[in-house]
């Protein structure tokens, strides 16, 4: 594996353009755009203050730079470097900012989540959406920037679902993105709506409650409640939710360390995956990272059912060997008396071909799971490590290579 030279970056703000041609990165208050293949600097923009968030528009023509402290959003164009746009939220403040799917509108969330302002780059018009919900940040995004889970765009960019709260009740509004008209507004039967997500086919919206209550609600595009699902009561509930790319399955990861998969026909659970501390099933292949230097700790990787774990690795020389079943996985018991404890299934990722589901349970130091588009390899990013796993889908056997990544 080859690594390029190290480039300066601040606040982990670094994004590839959606068409894959450019790479935008931030250094303090400068925005640097490089060519993705040669890594040569193509453009350099200067913002007024330190940048907290950048985002490419969907057509890769514009980049949005949000300066939360100043309440400013600056938009730069790749085609015309001298074009500029500055949106000042003034006293309303700025907490989050994102593009609309058509790449011509910017949605700003003002401070205290008072409202969402929709600025149009085409018409310079403004729309306001009141009472948006301040949902918690997703787990996977902790390493990266915070994003608001109360907003969800459909994959084709036609509709926007927004979680709201009024008079101590939760509502969901569906807007048409072309003219920002309110299409549907309905209330959800939740105590405290924690997040919403569209299915990839854009016809079903999944909404789930906060971790104090296990409840998943499924709404159709026109606002009808299709089904609710509740696995158990009283204990801490849902931690993460993910749709499969074909919209056939909905995976729900909860604090009890299990992943439950619902199917799209009956919206009932079809299977449940656990994360046992000892692996006894002889059909599972466990890859153990064996080090040549004195072992400080051994990492394990198991597939079928897949579970991603990155263990501590000190020397660059390591290889993976197949460990004999039964294998017991080292787990650290995190403090259970704190809020939002680090137990349960925190990260879920379906492979693009719908074959595999990668999950992270507990306190393992995997910050992000990312599948390759072909669905045969998985990249795991930990705090100190980067691991690339390659699966041969015919046999279902994977080989893995671990590399020591540099800190950035």
């Amino acid at each position, binding site marked *: 594996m080859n690594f390029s030279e190290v480039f300066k970056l601040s606040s982990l703000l670094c994004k590839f353009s959606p068409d894959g041609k450019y790479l935008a990165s931030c250094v303090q208050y400068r925005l640097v755009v490089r060519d993705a293949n040669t890594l040569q600097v193509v453009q350099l923009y200067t913002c007024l203050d330190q940048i907290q968030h950048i985002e490419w528009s969907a057509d890769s023509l514009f980049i949005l730079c949000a300066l939360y402290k100043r309440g400013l959003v600056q938009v730069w164009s790749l085609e015309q470097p001298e074009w500029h*746009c500055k949106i000042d939220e003034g006293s309303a403040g700025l907490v989050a900012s994102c593009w609309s799917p058509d790449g011509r509108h910017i949605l700003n969330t003002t401070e205290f989540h008072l409202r969402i302002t929709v600025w149009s780059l085409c018409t310079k018009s403004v729309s306001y959406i009141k009472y948006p919900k301040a949902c918690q940040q997703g787990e996977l995004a902790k390493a990266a920037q915070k994003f608001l889970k109360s907003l969800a765009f459909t994959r084709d960019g036609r509709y926007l679902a927004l979680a709201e709260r009024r008079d101590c009740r939760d509502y969901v509004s569906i807007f048409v993105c072309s003219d920002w008209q309110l299409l549907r507004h309905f209330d959800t039967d939740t105590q405290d709506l924690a997040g919403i997500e569209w299915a990839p086919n854009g016809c079903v919206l999944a909404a789930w409650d906060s*971790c104090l209550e296990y409840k998943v609600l499924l709404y159709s595009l026109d606002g009808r409640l299709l089904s609710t699902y509740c696995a158990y009561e009283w204990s801490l509930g849902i931690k993460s939710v993910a749709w499969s790319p074909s919209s056939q399955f909905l995976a729900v990861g909860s604090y009890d360390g299990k992943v439950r998969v619902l199917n799209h026909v009956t919206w009932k659970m079809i299977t449940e995956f656990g994360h046992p501390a000892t692996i006894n099933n002889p059909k599972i292949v466990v890859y153990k990272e064996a080090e040549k230097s004195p072992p400080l700790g051994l990492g394990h990787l198991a597939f079928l059912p897949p579970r991603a774990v990155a263990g501590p690795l000190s020397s660059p020389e390591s290889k993976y060997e197949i460990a004999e079943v039964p294998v017991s996985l080292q787990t650290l018991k995190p403090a259970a008396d704190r809020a939002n404890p680090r137990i349960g299934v925190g990260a879920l990722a379906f492979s693009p071909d719908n074959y595999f589901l990668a999950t992270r349970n507990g306190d393992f130091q995997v910050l992000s799971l990312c599948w390759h588009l072909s669905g045969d390899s998985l990249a795991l990013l930990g705090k100190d490590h980067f691991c690339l796993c390659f699966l041969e889908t015919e046999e279902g056997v994977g080989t893995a290579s671990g590399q020591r990544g540099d800190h950035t």
Partner: protein
Amino acid sequence: MGDWMTVTDSGLSSENKNISQYTSETKMSPSSLYSQQVLCSSIPLSKNVHSFFSAFCTEENIEQSIAYLDQELTTFGFPSLYEESKGKETKRELNIVAVLNCMNELLVLQRKNLLAQENVETQNLKLGSDMDHLQNCYAKLKEQLENSRREMIGLQERDRQLQCKNRNLHQLLKNEKDEVQKLQNIIASRATQYNHDMKRKEREYNKLKERLHQLVMNKKDKKIAMEVLNYVGRADGKRGSWRTGKTEARNEDEMYKILLNDYEYRQKQILMENAELKKVLQQMKKEMISLLSPQKQKPRERADDSTGTVISDVEEDAGELSRESMWDLSCETVREQLTNSIRKQWRILKSHVEKLDNQVSKVHLEGFSDEDMISRQDHEQETEKLELEIQHCKEMIKTQQQLLQQLATACDDDTTSLLRDCYLLEEKERLKEEWSLFKEQKKNFEKERRSFTEAAIRLGLERKAFEEERASWLKQQFLNMTTFDHQNSENVKLFSAFSGSSDRDNPTAHSRPRQKKPHSVSDGSPVCTSKLARSLPASPSTSDFCQTRSCVSEHSGSVSALNVTPEESRPSQAGRECADQKWSVASRPGSQEGCRSGCSLTYTNSHVEKDDLP
């Protein structure tokens, strides 16, 4: 003395017989009478007794009875009844005083005995009643003991049951305690979560208050504005539209369209799946029927009704199929029929398999082989063979692995020599290849040489013909032309003709090596590692060229129009004419000179040109 047996009253009536029974001394019958009398002394003397008394002593046996009595009394310790005799021979006189004393003594004794008897009897009675009493007590106590034992067992049983219940209750209590603990934990975690949320909300609230305060205090208000250099066009290039009721309706329509599309798509998928599954089921049914029906024809099968069902099923299925082909919809009845028939078939198959299993087990026991069942021995033999094969394969694999390992391990002298051998091998291989190349090319040369010689021969013949023609033509010319100089005209014609011939020569010479060239080049192309190989294609043509040049130089004197040659030449490459010019340019200076030098020049030129030519 006699038996002091208690004689019952009934015995008195038949006392004679009894006496005879009870007496031990048959001689002393009077003694038994005596004992009888003593015992029944309490009974008032009856007449029988009187008679009885009189039976002992009569007037005849007085002396004897006295003697007897005396004897008895003295044995009892009484003084003798006789007077003391003075002499032995004199008869003893009865001592009446002694008799009276004895009688008194006897009476006293009698009274004493009676008293004693009474006492004894009373005591006996008492003892008897005591015994009865004790027996009663004993019985009662035994009963009590039995009762108490039973009670104890009952109590033990109850105790055991209670202990069981106790244990169960303990268990329940433990469970409840665990649940309570769990719920407490849950409550605790929820409480921490709530607290955390509360704190967060409170912090936000405080921030809000501060901000509000700030805003109220702050006079100048930052303007909320957006400044853009210029407007950006919409992503899809269209203009924006006004928001009217129509747009709202349109949005609704679009939304419903999307939903409907999605549903239709899903329904299509499901229909397809259904159709496939139905097909699979049909296939399965057919296969099951076919599986079952040939087997059923065997005589060993006993179930005749099953064959009947199979046949009827086949008929049914034929009807079904026709029906199903007519309606390809999922009708309730069709679906039911399909599932029912499959279930039936499956049941038949199952029973058949079970029968087979039973037969196999029977065969197992009986130990003879049937036609369509593999005998146990055969089966075992086969498995043994397979196992042996597996062993062989495994051994082979092991040896191969070992060899591989040996190869992979660090080298010593043997291996280095081996390696060197390997390198030499490489060289040898290369040499071999080159040799084969050479041989091929040699063959090609031979071929070409032969063809060229043929061509040369032909050329010669043609030349001859041409020259004859020329000669005739010249003759004509000569005859026709009278003013011109002979030499000049000849020379000029020679030159032009020659140059013309040389011109025309070239195409033939060119075309031939041209035509040859593809062969040689194709032969040479696979392994072109050495210069020799590359220059080889050039050589045959140059050699040809040399040959032709030599031919031409031989015939330099003669001027022959090579009109024939274009016809002779093989399918010419018309497109090469520009290249031909090059050739002709190159060859022209050489044409006047000697062949060899010309050849060398042309060789180099050809070599150069060869590279240019495709």
